[in-house]
């Protein structure tokens, strides 16, 4: 069944100097239990669509609907806390929190007790192929790939139903990249999550259940 859908979604970035229409009339329904890949040229609007799906902003036109409720009509803080997680191109880790604390953050935000959160966070970090060694390191003391995996661990920690990933393997070697993809695939196929991956990597796209293509802000099934 459809968990998340775009309904005639358009989005325009407005700054003092210019307005950019980054998404134009995108419509699509995402199902639980499937992996989606969104591909397209740089600047075609992939990150923008992902951000709208994450409820970081509302579409200029149209609606993003989660479980029947448009994001404009829900508590989007709660939505982001409990239902959706985003893995960003730029990691977006807290620079002053250790790797472990970064992963604990969404858990503590949900009200999980510190001890439990720590155990859960440790488990998540190990599941993305990192060891205890990194727990106490700050992001600046981690490689790009390690930061990426911490970001993924943080996204998975709160057990969201929708996982949005922006180039999640861009900074990983083939082996680790494949690992991550496997984790994401198993979350979709075994935990019934809806996984949406923005990627340039055709190898990843091939593994997706559905591939969507974006071009100049418009979206179509490939």
């Amino acid at each position, binding site marked *: 069944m459809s968990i998340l859908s775009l309904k005639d979604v358009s989005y325009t*970035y407005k700054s003092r100097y210019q307005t950019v229409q980054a998404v134009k009339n995108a419509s699509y329904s995402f199902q639980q239990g499937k992996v989606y890949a969104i591909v397209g040229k740089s600047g075609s609007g992939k*990150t*923008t669509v992902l*951000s*709208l799906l*994450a409820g*970081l*902003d509302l579409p200029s036109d149209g609606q993003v609907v989660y479980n029947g409720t448009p994001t404009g009509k829900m508590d989007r*803080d*709660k*939505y*982001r*806390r*409990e239902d959706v997680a*985003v893995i*960003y191109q*730029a990691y*977006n*880790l*807290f*620079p*002053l929190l250790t790797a472990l604390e970064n992963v604990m*953050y*969404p858990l*503590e*935000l949900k*009200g999980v007790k*510190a001890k439990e959160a720590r155990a859960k966070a440790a488990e998540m970090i190990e599941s993305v192929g990192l060891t205890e060694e990194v727990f106490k390191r700050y992001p600046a003391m981690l490689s790009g790939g390690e930061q990426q995996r911490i970001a993924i661990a*943080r996204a998975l920690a709160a057990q969201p139903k929708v996982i949005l990933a922006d180039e999640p393997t861009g900074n990983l070697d083939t082996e680790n990249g494949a690992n991550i993809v496997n984790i994401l695939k198993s979350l979709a196929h075994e935990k019934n999550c809806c996984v949406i991956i923005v990627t340039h990597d055709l190898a990843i796209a091939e593994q997706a259940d559905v591939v969507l293509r974006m071009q100049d802000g418009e979206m179509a099934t490939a």
Partner: protein
Amino acid sequence: MSILKAVPRSLLRRGVRSLVVLAVSLVIALFLNMYGNAISQHEQTLDELHASIEVTGYIISLDGNTQGLDIEEQTIKGLEESGFIREGIYTRKIWGMVGPWQELAGTQLSNKIYNSPRLIGANSITTFALPPEIMDGYDESLFASAEKVCLVSEDSLGLYGLAIGDELQYTAVSDWRNVRHSSVSLKIVGTYESPFRPAAIYCPLDVVTALYRELDLPVLTDSASFILQNTQELNQFRELLENLNFINQQAGSGSDYKQLSFIISDRLLKNATASVQSYIDFTTALYPVIYLLCAGIGFVVSYLLIRIRKPEFAIMRSLGTSKVLTFLIFFSEQGVLCLLGAALGIFLTLATTQHISAQQFVTVIGYVVFYLVGASIAILAMNRVNVMQILTAKE
């Protein structure tokens, strides 16, 4: 998510950046206190100067006389009740003759009175240029009393065949036309030197006042000089002088020779206090500016320090931290540092000067408020920007 845990952790990890806020608040609190202290110290100095430098004043007629003034009773009363007079030194004279009343009239009477000494009442020995000689058992304080005693010139003793310790009878006369007279017996308790002949007889002020009353004459004062108090408010005193019909000498049109001026000898005080006063005036006038500047610095510092944390803020929001919680976290961090800095500032002030006034305390609190308002505005402004645009912005 516990603020109690998150805030101290962030403060400690931000290290130098936390110290900046702390230091800014500390320095400003210290500075505001020092500034306030400097003002109050100068105010204290000013008070001390006013207390220690004596300001005198005296009444003078338009033609420059300080005696023979006929100052009315209410004028003296008005001055004494003004609160500005610490001490008034008065003389009051009455005409008459030595000895009992003699049935004289017209020119004979006026000649007699003209050639007789006047009786002058004084309430202070300072009336005499040279110190008089006073017999044992009496002293300077006799003028403050109402005792029937007098001082006469050396010449007069011989003239009237009297000696120290004798009683001298003086008959006061009201005026030429409707002649009334009254006699008083005064014990001679001393002598003074006088170039005049006939030289006046001096007695306590109250003795002469009593004669005035007996003769049913308006009680006029011959001369008056003063030691002033409450000299911080001399301008107020000057206003009061105008209300008492004293005229300003400089402005004096002087049509009526009977009009009186009150001269305040405050040059010494003015010279001594001028620089302190102008320092106080200047620093006090500058105070609001300095204060706004400090508050402004607090405002800007807190604003900027929060704005540079936009990325951190965006991450918090993207993970679903509510606006309220983000506000509380950022605000408490700033609040703790600012308060800590201000408290240290106050503590250091107390450690160095052992004193902090309520006003200074309020001032520092005012700064803290400004700082926190700056922080709040910065956080609220940040809460309004689009998280998505921060997060997707390319480095």
